[in-house]
């Protein structure tokens, strides 16, 4: 009945929406279904003996949530945090993690037919984080695979050693 249609519509609307953010000259996008919060940069408590890109933990309304610096994750140069820097809190596999980005832009609709598969040539290490390339108007948004972004091991470092 009409109720079912309505619910179907709702689900569909979540499906093709992406939150876009800016990081070092490029625009990135993450599926909105994983995003549970966006907050401004706040005090981070460092945790020893963790990866470099794991900056530490923050207190989000009484919950202790780890945050990672996406720049460092992509092995880019670190940038000082300014008043535009934001933390995007994502929830995946029942774990909440914060992503520190330069600047948050907007929520966009990107239809599946407008998404190209990730580029296969070139450096492997960073491309595995890419889910697809979204074409929006004139610009291209790099759609990230959140699971890989958070959990994928760094193989490159081992290769370098051997």
């Amino acid at each position, binding site marked *: 009945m009409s109720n079912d249609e309505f619910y179907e519509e709702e689900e569909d609307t979540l499906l093709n929406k992406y939150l876009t953010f800016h990081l070092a000259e490029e625009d990135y996008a993450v599926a909105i279904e994983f995003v549970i919060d966006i907050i401004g940069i706040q005090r981070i*408590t460092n945790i020893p003996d963790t990866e470099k890109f794991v900056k530490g933990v923050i207190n989000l309304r009484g919950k202790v949530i780890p945050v990672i610096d996406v720049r460092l994750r992509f092995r880019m140069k670190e940038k000082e945090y300014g008043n535009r820097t934001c933390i995007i809190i994502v929830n995946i596999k029942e774990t909440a993690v914060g992503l520190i980005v330069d600047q948050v832009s907007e929520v966009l609709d990107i239809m599946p037919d407008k998404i190209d598969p990730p580029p296969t040539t070139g450096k492997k290490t960073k491309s595995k984080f890419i889910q697809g390339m979204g074409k929006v108007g004139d610009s291209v948004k790099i759609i990230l695979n959140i699971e890989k972004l958070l959990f994928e091991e760094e193989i490159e470092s081992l290769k370098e050693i051997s």
Partner: protein
Amino acid sequence: MSNKKFSSAIKKKSEKLKSLISNIKEKKDREKSIEESIKLFQQLQKIGSANSIKVLYSESQKTINLLNFINDNDDPLEKEFLKEIDESLKTIDNSLDKSTKEIEKNEQVQEIDKKDEFDEDSKELINSFISEGDDLLSDMDVNIGNFDENPDPETVNTIFRCFHSLKGMAGFLNFNSVREVTHEAETLLDIFREDISLKTDNDLDLLYETTDFLKLLVKNVSTNYTDKGLESEAKELVSKLSERIKQLKGTEESEGIDLTEKKSDPVELQKSDIEPAELEFDDISESNPEMTKQYISESLDQLENIDKNLLILENDFSDKETIKVLFRDVHSLKGNSGLMGLVDVEEVCMTIENLLNDVRSEQLKLSAKIITTLLKDFDIIKKAIETIDHKEKIIKIEILEKEEISHEIGQYIGTAKSDLLGDVLVEMGATSKKDINKALKIQERKKELTQAKIKRKDIRVDTTKLDKLFNLVGELLTIEAMITNNSDIKKLQIQSFIKSSSMLNKITRELQEVTTSIRMTPLEGLFNRMKRLIRDLSRKSGKKINFSIKGQETEMDKNIIQDITDPLIHLLRNAADHGVEDQKTREAKGKSKEGNVSLVAEYEGNEILIIIKDDGAGLNKEKILKKAKEKGFIKGKLENLSDKDIWKFIFEPGFSTAKVISEVSGRGVGMDVVKKNIEKLRGNIDVESKKNKGTTFKLKIPLTLAMMDVMLLRVGPTIYAVPITSIKENFKPLKKMLTVTMDGQEVVKLRDELFSVIRLHEQYNLNPDYEKLEDGILVLVEAHEKKVCFFVDEIIGQQQTVVKGLSEYIGNVHGLTGSMILSDGGIGLILDVEGIIETYQKKSN
């Protein structure tokens, strides 16, 4: 007597009513007459219920309903209704004559019954029957109403369950009228369960009638401790119900009463047609997952109790109390299983019930063999129930053929009597009957004292709700700390605020204590399972093991109990398997034939101490050293290793000196997992052992994972928290107390002891305020008898806090056990004192 008085009162009232009804018919003072009639009928109803005059009660009820209806509506059917009311009055008059006769008869019967001595136990049972019966029946009306409006399987099931429970309880107490009626009702409901569309309005009437009658019976029980006196009414109702059942079934077969009640002929059991092989769980999908979950948890509880009681019985075959309790549990299990459609479980329970009945009526004497068989059977049932996944449709399990079970049990029903020890002794002239009786009395006394029956009123709560409550209380505490420790407010030093906030603090602490205690359950359940374990182990290995437990009333957080179960099992297995030597060896060593294993629990400050002790062979030092060498665990000089250090090797992964890997132990994956599990609970494990004397394992576990008293320390910009229990003292060192070795190791002399100093800022790469030790503060901490001093910049203060994990994403960080929210909203890191000391020592070695 009084009843005669009532019968004349009833007669008077019915006369009045006749005139009132004719008024209504003629529409004279209609409203008033209706009102008065209702009043009179209500009085009649009361009399009916007080004197168990069913007809009076039900007819009055009917008429009241009709009168109410007439009052509300100007109905064309009014004439019909008034006719019915006339009929009712006539019925009342007729039965009045009948019932006065019956009442007289019943009074005689009742007097005889009352002369029976009701012992305390029976009274208690009857009381619980009454209260449970009241509850069930009061819900019944509502449920039948629901059944009328929305005939769905859930409602039918509920109604069925009500009747079934009543039947069970009644059966146990020999309340035959209740039992017979509920049995028929149950059967009728069962038909509706199959096909709900068969229900008609007449059926609903029938069900209401049944409920009313049962209410009457329960009332009877509450006054007279028996349901006797309404046999004829019961029979009437039973025949009405069975008529309807016959109609629906279309067969001539009448159901007859439960097999349980028949006296079982042992021979019949063996010959009975039992289906072979597998226990089939049909139709689980029909019952909803909620019911299945409840069934599983209830049944597992019941099975635990059954186990415990069987073990008690094993030590005393004549323990009537336990037999009663056991029977009840088996009976409930049977009932519930039947409800869930687990026919096979039901039938096995029934067979066992029969056996227990025979034991109760002394047609059969218990023996160790029987108990072992019963234990085995319930194990099978337990395994079967544990494998039920409420999403799966049919689960088949391989079991002992039902035939085998019944056959084995049948063997023991009616077989040889195991002579009572006392009788044998008297025969031999060893003691006199007097002495035996004396000894028995002392035994009974002791039993009474040790069976500390804590009668608690329990209520089942969903653990997710508890967890939510727990979390909220934790957050409340955090926020309370944030408010009361707010630096701005503190500066203002407002007296009234300080007063109120300290009261708030008191209340929140108490709230926290209460919520923690909710999750606490006594270790008794766990310990009883261990009893069973040791018993099985000792039988398997042929070693005689004396297992003693102490401190089973000690309470622990339920979650923690679950987590220590496996480690405990492992340690006890080791004790029984490797520790205790076999009889021959023990005798050769001059030890007692029986090995001794003990399990003790006690509180120690904020922690629980669990001690597992055996008086066996003790740990083999040489073997352990050899293995440690082999695996390369030994670093440094052998001579420097104390006994304690040697014992620690058994906790290394992959370590096992057992030559033969038995089914029970020896695979070398045990001890390190045990240690890890205990450490996960923020506890620790200690070993002591002496050759040929035995081994003792000590487990220390904090009472609660969630809250901790900590001391806050500042090192540079970071705030660390150290559990208060680890802190011995703190002080500002004087230069003369400090010494530096050539290796750069700093040592401080406090009174007459020397302690190493660990600079936390070096460990964590921070910029401290002070470089020189004498400018900062030293905190003396202890972990496992190792004492060290932490060098910090400042001590902030003490706080009780909710411990939060470090997020799975970060995983385990060495030196930290968790995090906490500080009162300014920041995050403090909780230090793992033992871990830090260990790493520090490893580094320096």
